[in-house]
């Protein structure tokens, strides 16, 4: 589902945990960002953030239940790109995730996805009950 005007591209899709479908979706978003002249650095950050949000949805949200979907909605303009990633899980408290950058947590293999999203995107917020993340990348002003 998508609508494109010359100054805006909006749409939504439901993804199953299937790598080819996720890769195709990422390529599609990257194409839209490229057409709106987002920098390579911005596209790198958006791709990583989407990957982290989608994978969190499948693993922590849907608990790897193959019958459940992750839905992504996007709205991209020449100035900014907004994404909503929703899973079918019960949600979680993002503040309860330990800070992975503390020395005592460096050797823990998981828990870095949310901090990467918060670093690469201009804004990121979880909506209650925590199964819906909204994240936005805004181009820096020239």
């Amino acid at each position, binding site marked *: 589902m998508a609508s494109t005007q010359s100054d805006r591209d909006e749409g939504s899709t439901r993804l199953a*945990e299937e*790598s080819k479908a*996720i*890769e195709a979706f990422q390529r599609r978003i990257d194409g839209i960002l490229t057409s709106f002249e987002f920098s390579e*650095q911005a596209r*790198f950050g958006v*791709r*990583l953030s989407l*990957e*982290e949000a989608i*994978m969190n949805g499948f*693993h922590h949200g849907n608990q790897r239940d193959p019958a459940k979907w992750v839905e992504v909605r996007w709205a991209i303009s020449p100035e900014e790109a907004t994404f909503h990633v929703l899973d079918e899980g019960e949600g979680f408290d993002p503040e309860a995730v330990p800070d*992975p*950058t503390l*020395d005592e947590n*460096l*050797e*823990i*293999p*998981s*828990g*870095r*996805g949310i*901090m*990467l999203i918060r*670093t690469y995107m201009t804004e990121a917020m979880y909506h209650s009950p925590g199964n819906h993340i909204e994240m936005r990348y805004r181009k820096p002003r020239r």
Partner: protein
Amino acid sequence: MASAPSRIRVADVNGVMRVDFTDSDILDEAAIRQINSELTRAIEAASPPRVLICFAGVEHLSSAALGTLVTVNSLIKKRGGQLRFSNIKPSIFEVFKITKLSKLFQFFDTAEQALQGFGRG
């Protein structure tokens, strides 16, 4: 059942295990699990494991891939070995810096530089 094609290339360079990735994107969960098990097998066969992971050609990597590298590092340390990284693009190195994992690993510009002095700390 046919096994999936290997996600890494492993070569012996003067007693150092050099590992290269076959994919430019290390994002897919199934691929990362496979990389983890291939690396674990190779490390467990070496004593002590001296491992160079070369990131030439790698364009994207997720937190799950970072997790695998952390696990592999712990295993290598446990077995008294050493792990070094080389040829990391600046955008990927940034991911290591943001997560502070740059403190955990040793980075070299080129594989040749990384291979020098392996085993001497």
